[in-house]
């Protein structure tokens, strides 16, 4: 199977939809039409390609990790999204959405952020396109990611603390949606993952498809074929959707690494929050539970609806990894390859490292979605 377009109602199988307050429905429908037109417009595609190349530094390389491969007993390759401008894959989606927002005549952006990577990317695009920008961030995350908060401010963005609920990514999404309801006519909601109401899960995946498309070609060159296994970390699931979309029609096994404390697919209970019907951590009454993860970027109780569909159909598997395993993986990649990964991306490596015996002799492509500079202060505390 391949990762195709959703139905007109924005469904991947039974998952997805457009569960937003009435005020936002016309904006989502307008965005759907605008995205379809832009994505079919060669001029838009060319302009985005130019930005991704000349501004963001694409294509990102694929690195064959000899030292790590020797240590783990399987051949590990990294798709180096950490080398993009702003330090993660997030810039792909943000440049696409900002360009689209301009085309739609919007003058402002609003976004949510967890670890701050999407917030920094959005702030960057806002600076580049001369747009006003407000980013909501949980106050817990503001404390553990102060460097990214400073970056956003430096880029001219207003960072607002989300003080409700768990004060992490989930609550930042709530606040961003509340903000958007009031300013929907002038403002584009630059959502940072493959979640939310239609067309976001689809549009954000399409903007990240470049990761998978590049990697497929690069693997042909390096391996003479597709890798056996593709691994990516999953919170909402944007980097995973991007790399999976390049390989969904191949024979490669697709693995999403979820934080054990935020394993929406692992619990496999469907629900409705933040605009879509998908798997969701919740109690018996439907109250959304708070995720618990070492990584602010994956500290989210839901998952994008297309991932729920990939899980339900068996095309991809989603595996939980613990914070302790992630810390070890963070150290492992730093020590063996001289690459400090984002804590989010270290989830994928943690799975590879744990499953090394069953992966023996296989080729494994890990999407290294971001670099770890932002996490160094937190790791100093953890590792003493």
């Amino acid at each position: 199977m391949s990762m195709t377009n959703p139905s007109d109602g924005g469904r991947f199988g039974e998952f997805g939809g457009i569960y937003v307050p009435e005020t936002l429905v016309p904006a989502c429908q307008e965005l759907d039409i605008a995205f379809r037109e832009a994505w079919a417009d060669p001029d838009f595609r060319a302009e985005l390609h130019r930005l991704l190349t000349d501004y963001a530094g694409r294509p990102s390389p694929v690195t064959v990790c000899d030292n790590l491969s020797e240590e783990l007993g399987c051949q590990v390759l990294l798709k180096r999204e950490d080398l993009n401008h702003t330090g993660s894959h997030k810039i792909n989606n943000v440049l696409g959405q900002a360009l689209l927002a301009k085309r739609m005549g919007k003058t402002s952006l609003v976004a949510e952020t967890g670890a701050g990577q999407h917030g920094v990317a959005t702030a960057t695009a806002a600076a580049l396109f001369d747009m006003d920008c407000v980013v909501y961030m949980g106050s817990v995350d503001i404390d553990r990611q102060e460097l990214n908060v400073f970056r956003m401010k430096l880029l001219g963005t207003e960072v607002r603390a989300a003080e409700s609920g768990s004060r992490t990514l989930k609550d930042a999404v709530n606040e961003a949606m509340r903000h958007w309801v009031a300013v929907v006519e002038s403002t584009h909601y630059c959502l940072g993952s493959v979640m939310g109401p239609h067309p976001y899960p689809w549009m954000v995946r399409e903007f990240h498809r470049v990761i998978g498309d590049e990697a497929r070609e690069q693997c042909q060159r390096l391996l003479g074929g597709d890798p056996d296994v593709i691994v990516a970390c999953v919170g909402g699931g944007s980097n995973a959707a991007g790399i999976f979309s390049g390989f969904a029609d191949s024979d490669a096994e697709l693995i999403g690494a979820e934080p054990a404390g935020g394993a929406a697919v692992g619990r496999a209970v469907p629900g409705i929050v933040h605009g879509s019907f998908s798997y969701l951590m919740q109690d018996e009454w439907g109250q959304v539970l708070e995720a618990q993860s070492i990584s602010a970027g994956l500290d989210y109780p839901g998952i994008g609806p297309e991932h729920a569909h990939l899980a339900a159909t068996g095309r991809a598997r989603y595996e939980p990894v613990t914070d302790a395993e992630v810390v070890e993986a963070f150290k492992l990649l730093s020590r063996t390859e001289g690459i400090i990964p984002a804590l989010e991306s270290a989830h994928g490596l943690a799975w590879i490292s744990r499953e090394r015996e069953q992966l023996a002799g296989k080729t494994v492509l890990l999407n290294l979605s971001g670099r770890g500079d932002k996490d160094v202060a937190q790791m100093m505390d953890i590792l003493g």
Partner: protein
Amino acid sequence: MTGALETALRTRREAGGKSLVPYLTGGLGDDWLETIQAVADAGADAIEIGVPFSDPVMDGPVIQLANDKALASGATPLSILDRVRRADIGVPTAVMTYGNIAYRMGWERFANTLADGGVSGCILPDIPLEETGEWVDAADAAGVETVMLAAPTAPDDRLPLICERSRGFVYAVGLLGITGVRAELADSAKVIAGRVKAVTDKPVLVGVGIGTPEQAVQACEVTDGVVVGSAIVQRMLDGTGPEGVAALVSEFRAALDG
């Protein structure tokens, strides 16, 4: 068939009056049910009962806080509905909550639980027209009136579809934004109320941003009535007791009857 909610609001309109529908958060404090009864006695035509949800994206700080407090004290959808079922409130009620609360219980079971509890209507603000399918089938079958929202952003061709699907009344969202008290009535309130009134004979109530009796009166120059939420819930949070909340409702009633 016209339900109890729509009947009550039509009756008020036919008598030349304006409808007042206060919103109160279920499970908030020990005396929330007594407060609902006091509010009914103070002249409410119907009452919206909020069933708290962890992530109320349509709600501002006051109702968020009320939700959090009610949840922290252990309120659940069933504990709230069970107490409503055993109470004699005297006016029609409608539950306002979010889609996942109903979905998790099961669309049918939720609709039947409302009907068994004597609740006339239901408002699920994150279930727009595009996603009403399974819910309204269950609600219609159980005789629960599903109130739809009409927002200022709706294009002209969308409003008749919303009104067609709405039962009980049509909830005209008074402004671009979330629930909460504002200093002035937004200009958009009368505009959306007028646009909705032009395409339906069903009762049209304006809610979101109606925080004072004066604002209620202004909105009712165009519309059939108002929903008042945050101002009422603030009184509940302030701990004024059933009498204090009822006193505020009496002020709204007197102003509308002016």
